[in-house]
C-alpha cells in the first residue's frame, strides 16, 4: 500500500485510489472473522482433496480416502432402481395381460398397467425405435405399429411371441416364412412378373384393369401364403394385398421389385437381451399404441 494515504472527506475512510467518473472506491476494512472464514475454506479444501478424488495425474487421478466414485454411485442407484421395480416386475409376469387388455376391469391394481406402459415406453425408445421409428411410426420395410394392420397378429400374446423370438431371426422358435425372389431366381419371366404386378395392383384399387394372365399366375404362385383373394395370412406373416397399406411401398415399380427380388424382413429375437418382464412391458406398450387387438 502506498504511503500517501488519501482520505475521503465525507466518510473519513481511506480510498483505494480506484476512481470511475469521479466516484472513488473506499478502502473499508473487512471484518477479521471474514478472513477467518476464508482460511477455513482453505483448510476444508485440503481435507476434501485428501478424502475425495481430486488431483489429476498423467494416466489416473488421486482416488481419495473415502473411495468415492460417481460411477459407483450410479451403479448403486441402478441396483436400487431394479430393487424398487422388482415388485412390479413380478406382477407383470403374473398378470394375464391377454385378458386384461380385453377387459381392464380384470386388473385389480391399475398401477401395474401404468408401470408396464411407462417401462415399455422407455424400452421401446432404447431398443425398437432404431428400426420402427419414433413411437413406432414405421418406415418402408419396417411396419408402422400404430395402425391396426399386423403381419403376425396384434393380440398381446402374438406381440409378445414376436418380440421374444423375432422374425426370421437366428432363434429356433423364430417366426419364419419366405417370399421368394420370383424374378432373380427365374421362377417367373419378366413378362409374367409384369402381369402379376398388374393383378396385385388391381386387388386394392378397383379402378385398375384386371389382368386374366396375372390372376392365373397369382393363383399358381401366391395364394398359398397370401390367400385366394390376396387377403393375407397371419400364419405365414403374409400381408393383406387388398388394403391401402404397403410395407414396401405400393407403386408399380415398388411392387414389381418386391415380386422380382422377394422380401426377407428380419427382426431379432429379444429374449436374450431383455428379461421376460421387460418383454411383457414392451408388449403392453406396443399393444397400447393404438392397433392392439
Amino acid at each position: 500500500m502506498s504511503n500517501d494515504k488519501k482520505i475521503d472527506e465525507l466518510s473519513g475512510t481511506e480510498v483505494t485510489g480506484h476512481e470511475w467518473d469521479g466516484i472513488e472506491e473506499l478502502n473499508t476494512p473487512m471484518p477479521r472473522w471474514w478472513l477467518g472464514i476464508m482460511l477455513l475454506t482453505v483448510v476444508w479444501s485440503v481435507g476434501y482433496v485428501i478424502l475425495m478424488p481430486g488431483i489429476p495425474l498423467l494416466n489416473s487421478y488421486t482416488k481419495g480416502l473415502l473411495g468415492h466414485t460417481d460411477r459407483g454411485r450410479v451403479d448403486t442407484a441402478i441396483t436400487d432402481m431394479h430393487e424398487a421395480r422388482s415388485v412390479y416386475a413380478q406382477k407383470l409376469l403374473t398378470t394375464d395381460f391377454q385378458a386384461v387388455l380385453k377387459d381392464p376391469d380384470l386388473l385389480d391394481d391399475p398401477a401395474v398397467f401404468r408401470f408396464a406402459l411407462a417401462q415399455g415406453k422407455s424400452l421401446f425408445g432404447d431398443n425398437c425405435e432404431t428400426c420402427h421409428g419414433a413411437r413406432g411410426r414405421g418406415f418402408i420395410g419396417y411396419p408402422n405399429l400404430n395402425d391396426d394392420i399386423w403381419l403376425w397378429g396384434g393380440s398381446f400374446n402374438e406381440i409378445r411371441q414376436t418380440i421374444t423370438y423375432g422374425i426370421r431371426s437366428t432363434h429356433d422358435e423364430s417366426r419364419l416364412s419366405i417370399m421368394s425372389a420370383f424374378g432373380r431366381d427365374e421362377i417367373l419371366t419378366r413378362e409374367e412378373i409384369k402381369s402379376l404386378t398388374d393383378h396385385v395392383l388391381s386387388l386394392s384399387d378397383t379402378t385398375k384393369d384386371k389382368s386374366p394372365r396375372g390372376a392365373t399366375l397369382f393363383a399358381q404362385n401366391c395364394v398359398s401364403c397370401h390367400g385366394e383373394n390376396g387377403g393375407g395370412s397371419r400364419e405365414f406373416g403374409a400381408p393383406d394385398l387388398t388394403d391401402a397399406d404397403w410395407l414396401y411401398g405400393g407403386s408399380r415399380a415398388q411392387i414389381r421389385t418386391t415380386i422380382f427380388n422377394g422380401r426377407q424382413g428380419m427382426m431379432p429375437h429379444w429374449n436374450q437381451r431383455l428379461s421376460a418382464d421387460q418383454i411383457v412391458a414392451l408388449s403392453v406398450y406396443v399393444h397400447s399404441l393404438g392397433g392392439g387387438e
Partner: protein
Amino acid sequence: MTELKIGHDNKPDPNHGQTTRKTVAHGVERSFAKAVSPSTPESLYKKRTQVYPKAVKGTYRSLKWFIMAILLGIYYITPWIRWDRGPSAPNQAVLIDFENARLYFFFIEIWPQEIYYITGLLILSALGLFLATALFGRVWCGYACPQTIWTDLFMAVERFFEGDRNARIKLDKSPWTSKKIAKKTGKHIAWLLISMATGGAWILYFHDAPRLLTDLFIGHAPQTAYVFLALMTFFTYALAGFMREQICTYMCPWPRIQAAMIDDQALNVTYRFDRGEPRGAHKKGETWDGRGDCIGCRQCVAVCPTGIDIRDGAQLECIGCALCIDACDDIMVKIGRPKGLIAYDTDANIERRLKGQRNQFNLIRPRTILYTIAFFGVGAVMVYSLLNRSVLDMNILRDRIPNYVTLSDGSVRNGYTIKILNKATAPRELRIDAMGLDATQMSIVGLKKINGQFILSVPADETLDYKVYLAIKDVSQLSDREIFHLKLTDIKTQENTLTETMFITGNPK
C-alpha cells in the same frame, strides 16, 4: 448542508483530565460508551469489538417487546394450527409438503405448477418493504427482521444471566471464576435451547407437526428434518448470539437496497443536531441559551445494539430500532428539556428548521403513491386468480409421431395424451366428450365403455394421464386440420373443463 458542526465527544478528549467528572448535568451520569464502529478505520482487517447494549425502557422498547411477542408467537404456534381439508389431505393449516409437492396455507392449496403465487407473494413482500422504507426508513430492520428479533431475545437472556451493560463489561474483563463460568454456561445453555426451539419450529412447517415431534424424539423423523434442525440451531446460535450486528453491517443486502428507497422525506431515526448542537455538559441552574440540548451523556451510544453514535448522522449500520430515542427521551425528561432530541424525523425537516421554517411531513409522495398502487394492484391480481382458481384442469398433448394413422378400413386416427389435474379433495369420475368433431370412434387405453361411455376416474388431489384415440371413418369432406375441444364433465357435480386441440386428417392443405 449546514453551518453547524457536529461535536465529536466520541474522540479521545485532549483535556481528558478535566472532563473525567461523572455527571454531565444535574442527576445525569455520563456513560463512557464509545462507538465501536467509528468512522475512521485503522487497518486492512478490523477486529470486531463486542457491543454491550444497555437496557432501556420507553415507548419504542415496549413496542418492540410487543411486536417480538406477536411475531415469535406466530412463528411457534402456526405449525400447530389445524385445518380440516377432508380425509385425503393433511389437516395442518400451514404446511409445505415437499414429499407430495403441495403447499397448504389455510384455505389455499398450491401445486408446483402454481408457484407463481409464491412469486406474487414475494413481489407483495418487496413492495410492502419498499413502501414501509419510503415512509419510515428501516422499520423492517428495527422491528420485524428475524435477525433483530432473535438478537433482542438473546440479549434479554444475556442480561438475565450476566446483568446489564456495565456488569457484562466487568464480567468479560474479570478472570474465570466459578461464578463467571456458571453465568456463561447458563447463558449458552439458554441460547442453545432457544436455538433448538427455533430449528425445531422450522421443520414443523414441512411435516405434520404432532407426528414429527414424536418422531423427532424417538429417532424416526426423516434425515432432512435432523439436518435442518441442526442447521437452524447452529445458525440461530451463531447469528443471534455472536454475529449480531455484523450480519446487518456486512452480510445483509437490504441496507444497501434501502439506500435507494430512502429519500430526504423518509422518516428516520434522526439526531436533531439543529437542536442538540453545540453539545456539552450542563450544570444545574445554568442557562440553556446559546447551546444545544445534547449534554453528551452518550446514553444513545450505550443502548445502541449496533454500536454506533446516532449523532454522527444516518449510517449504514443503523437498523432504525429507535432505542436511542427511548434513551434520549429519558434523559430529556430528567434535565427538564422537551423530548425528541432524537426522533423519527427527516433530513428535509432539519434543513427547514435551520432556515426557520416549520416542520413538514410528506408521507404522500409520488414514490409512496406508486408503491401503494403497485402493492394493491398485485394483491388484487392475486386475490382474483386465487378466487378463480380452477380445481379441475386438463392438458392435452396431441401425438405428433405419427401425426395421424390410416387404419386398414381407410379411417384416420389421431392419438391424444390427456393429463387430468384434479385439485379437489375428493376423487372424481369424469365423462369425456369431443365437442365439435364427428368422431366415429373413441377408445381409451386401459378403459372400456360402461353404458356406452368412458368413465375416467382420478383420485383426489392428483394428476393422471390417459391415452385417448379418436378415429374418423371418412375424412374426405374435412380440411387438413380440424380444431375441436375435448370436454371433461364431473358426473356428480357437473363441473367441467374444456381444452382446445386439433385433429389432423392427412388431407392436403
